């Protein structure tokens, strides 16, 4: 059974069932031109608004120390 039909998660999949990336047989070297493109791509500034969601705790809005859990 393949991952496509089983819908496994990142923590239940196993290596022997994984699909790899495409690979150019016999060309293990990446050209200098592509290496430079990879370097530039890695440094490219990314904007992802989800980062903000993990930046702002709203603890300042917790109106008082008196919020109780009973």
């Amino acid at each position, binding site marked *: 059974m393949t991952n496509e039909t089983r819908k496994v998660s990142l923590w239940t999949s196993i290596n022997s069932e994984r699909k790899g990336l495409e690979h150019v047989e016999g060309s293990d070297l990446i050209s200098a031109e*592509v290496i430079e493109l990879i370097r530039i*791509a890695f440094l490219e500034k990314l904007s992802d608004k989800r980062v903000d969601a993990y930046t702002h705790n709203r603890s300042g*809005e917790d109106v008082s120390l008196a919020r109780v*859990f009973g």
Partner: protein
Amino acid sequence: MNTAKPLRFLDFNSQENPLVIIKQNLKSIQSSYLFQYLKDLDCKSLLIEDNYFDRDFLSEVSAVYCLSAKGYPNVCKRLHFFSSELTREKFALAAGSDEKSERELNEHYLGFIVIRPINGSPFGRTVLKWYADLNRDTPRITQPARVYVSSLAGVELSVNGLAWQQQDSGVAACATIGIWSMLHSSAFDARHAIPTTSIITEAAHSSALVGHQTYPSYSLTYPQIQHAIKQLGFSPSYTSGDQPGQFFSKSRFANICAAYIRSGYPLMIGGSHEDGGIGHAVCALGFREVAVTNTPVAGEVYLQDEEIEYIYVHDDNIGPNVRFKLEEETYSFEGGISTRCVMKMEKPGYLESDETPNLDNTSFYPKAVIAAVHNDLMISSDGFFRHGIILTGQLCNILNTYLRSQGFEEKALAFSSRFLMLKEYLKDELERQLFGQPELLSSVRMQLQENVAPMSLHLAILRIALPDSSIMVDVIFDTTDTDKNKSVFCHVVFDETLARIIEALPENMRLAEFGAKVAAYIK
């Protein structure tokens, strides 16, 4: 004086079953829930120890109930439940060390409930077996659960779960019970004795800054909860909602729950049943794993765990292992409209029953989560998510740069994160991941042992994969450094092509972001 009493063996539906008696007399939600839960587990019989000294209750007696004019006894009952008929003769065989009988008892053992001699809140320490998990590919994750062994007449009965109990509002409030359940977690097995409820309440009140009358304990505040966790030798990891009014977005709440629970840390969830209602705290101990279901768009980064739909909660006002569905709803606040996460109790379809009252009517709005974590865990789940989003985005960028240059189709990536002990990663996680590939498993373990700088006791694992869950790389971070430093030990790379792409980065950049290379593929 306490006196000798024989063990009693009853049919589950017997009118002498203490659970049935409590249900009839109190008509409480907890008694109905526990009765239904056990019925759903196909409970057929129970064994009653009428004399049981419970460590927690003895501590409660010592702190509060011994002062009462009522004269509370110090002995409890303990009820053991079975999914088969149990007779005195069968149990006596097991007591004679008959292996077959003892094994059969354990195969049908459903767990236990301690019944305290407190009329209004009788349910003490309770550990019940989980109901069947029908989906093995996206299983129920209950990492904090541990094995509890009960011993009576020399017979050992084992059940896997996490302890729950009802608040008595004398020694313990809901938050106290939440902390108590959290500290029962398997994550702490190696290093501490589990504190009793009275020890927790007294720890919460041990600072003059947060002092009010210790007993009776009706409630705790956020600072008291965090203070108690610190006093008991752990670090409180606090996260509050990201939306106006301190509510959570569903995706963030789901991600945080998954990250901690998958790591074995239960979470105390503070919130309220209604807007502005009285605060309540519950303890989350499980969730249903998910696969990435979105149709992947090339170049996008997916957070697998934000799609989680179900979490499992100990609610002292309801019972253990209560299933809640995570939903998103629109709400208005001063200045606009937003969406927030709401937890709605939902019994699994295959456990439907016509019992009354209908318990599936509870909604809960989470506003803060607090985990008790090991003191060496310096990085936060929030900080790790931020870094995960950015690093996976960068990896997606360079991957697609390469794929474009070769004329291949571009890809999306997904990630998930967890904290894990080094020994558990080396032993269980790699063994599961590399199942059936002993030579590769050996090679990866040896590389991690010999080629990587000494690693911390706990690791932060960023697992990056294609959206179909084909694992590409585990990036392994140091948990003993700060969020800002993002100290990385190594990357265990499962794909040779991706390994070559990462190797194309300048060495200083590669080592700073991915650490040492561990090859987990066959060359």
